[in-house]
C-alpha cells in the first residue's frame, strides 16, 4: 500500500486565533475554520512526513484510536482539504518552499 504525503497549499493564508485555525483561500477568498483534528493534520503537513506517521505520532496519542481506523479517517479528511485547495496530496514527498514547519503564513494570535 502506498504512503500518502501532504503539504500545505501555498495559495492559502492561515492564522490561529484563540486556538481556532482559520484558513482563507487566496484563489476565491473562501474562509475555512478547521476542527482540532484537521488543525493537527494541517500543521503537520510539511510534504515530507507521510500521513501514516502523522496519524501515529500526532493523532493516535491525542484521541486513543486504532491507527488503521485513524489513518482511514485522516486520508478522507486530507482529501477533503485537498478538494478545497487547502492541502496538496501526493503519493510522493512534496517539495515546496512553503512546506516547512515554520510556515510564516501560519501566524498565531492571542
Amino acid at each position, binding site marked *: 500500500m502506498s504512503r500518502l504525503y501532504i503539504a500545505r497549499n501555498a495559495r492559502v493564508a492561515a492564522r490561529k*486565533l*484563540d486556538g*481556532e485555525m*482559520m484558513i482563507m483561500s487566496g484563489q476565491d477568498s473562501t*474562509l475555512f475554520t478547521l476542527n482540532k483534528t484537521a488543525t493537527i493534520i494541517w500543521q503537520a503537513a510539511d510534504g515530507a512526513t507521510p500521513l501514516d506517521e502523522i496519524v501515529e505520532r500526532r493523532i493516535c496519542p491525542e484521541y486513543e484510536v486504532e491507527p488503521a481506523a485513524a489513518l482511514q479517517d485522516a486520508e478522507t479528511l486530507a482529501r477533503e482539504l485537498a478538494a478545497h485547495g487547502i492541502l496538496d496530496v501526493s503519493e510522493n514527498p512534496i517539495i515546496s518552499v512553503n512546506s516547512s514547519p515554520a510556515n510564516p503564513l501560519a501566524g498565531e*494570535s*492571542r
Partner: protein
Amino acid sequence: MPGLISPVDCLHLTIEIGGMPIRVNTTDADFLGMLQNRYAGFVGSSESAAIEFDIDLFAPGFVDPRADLRVTQHAGKWSLERGDFRAEWEPARRTGAIRQSANPYSIDAVLRIVHTLVLAQEGGFLLHAASAIRNGKAFLFAGVSGAGKTTISRLAPSDATLLTDEISYVRKDVRKDARKHDHGYVAHGTPFTGELAKLGENVSAPISALYLLAQGPENRIDPVAPGEAARELLANVLFFAEDQELVQRAFHAACEFVSRVPVSRLTFVPDARVWEMIG
C-alpha cells in the same frame, strides 16, 4: 496661422481621505465644481498628492453601474473596470487615468477601490461600518445593510463626532508618539455616506473598540470570540481585487485587527440610550 491649436486649461482637485491625498485632473470646470461639492471637507493640498489621476470624460449614455466590477493587476499596473468607468493606475509611477461620464458615482467607486488597494498593502482596510469619535477615542459599528449603521449614527449624542455612517477607514497607527494603551489602529472620517447622506468629519482618532451591530429588545454588549470576530470582520471588509497576495494580506490584516482591538456584539433598541454604553 493663429488659433489652430489652443491650450486646454487643466483643472485639478486634491481629495484627501484617510490622510492620503489623491489629485484628479480634468479639463471640465463643471465636473470640477461637482467634485468640489461632493468632497467638501476632504479637499487637500495638490503639492502633496500621493496619486494623480487624469480624468477623461465621455458623453453620458446608457451604462450599467451594477455591471460586474473587475479589479486586476498586470505588470505592475492595476486595471479597474465597471459598466460606468474604466481606470488604470500604476502605483510605481503614482499616476493613473479614469474614463467616465461626468457623474460623481464613478469616481467615488474608483477612489474607494484605490484606497482599499493601498490600505491592503499596509495592514488597513475599508469596512462596512459607521464610526464616531467620543472622548478622543474612535468606535466602529460594523454590519451589513439593515444592521443599524445609519440608526446608531443618527442617535449619536452631540459630543460625538461622526466619521461616517457607512464606510469606515482603518489604518495602522504608525505614529511614534502613539499612546501605549491604544490598540494600534486609527479610524479616519470619510465622505462615503449611507442613508444618512451626511459626509463624515475629516478627523481621526485611535480605535478603542469594534462593535458588531444587532438590533434587539434591550441594549447590551456581549464579548465575541476572536475567530467569530475575524469571520464577521472579513465579511464586512471592502475588497475588490482578484489578487492572491492581496487576499492573503487582507486576511492577515483582519486577524491582526481582532487580536489587538476589543470586538463585541452591540445589541440595541433604536433610542439614544445605547450611547450611554459607549465612550
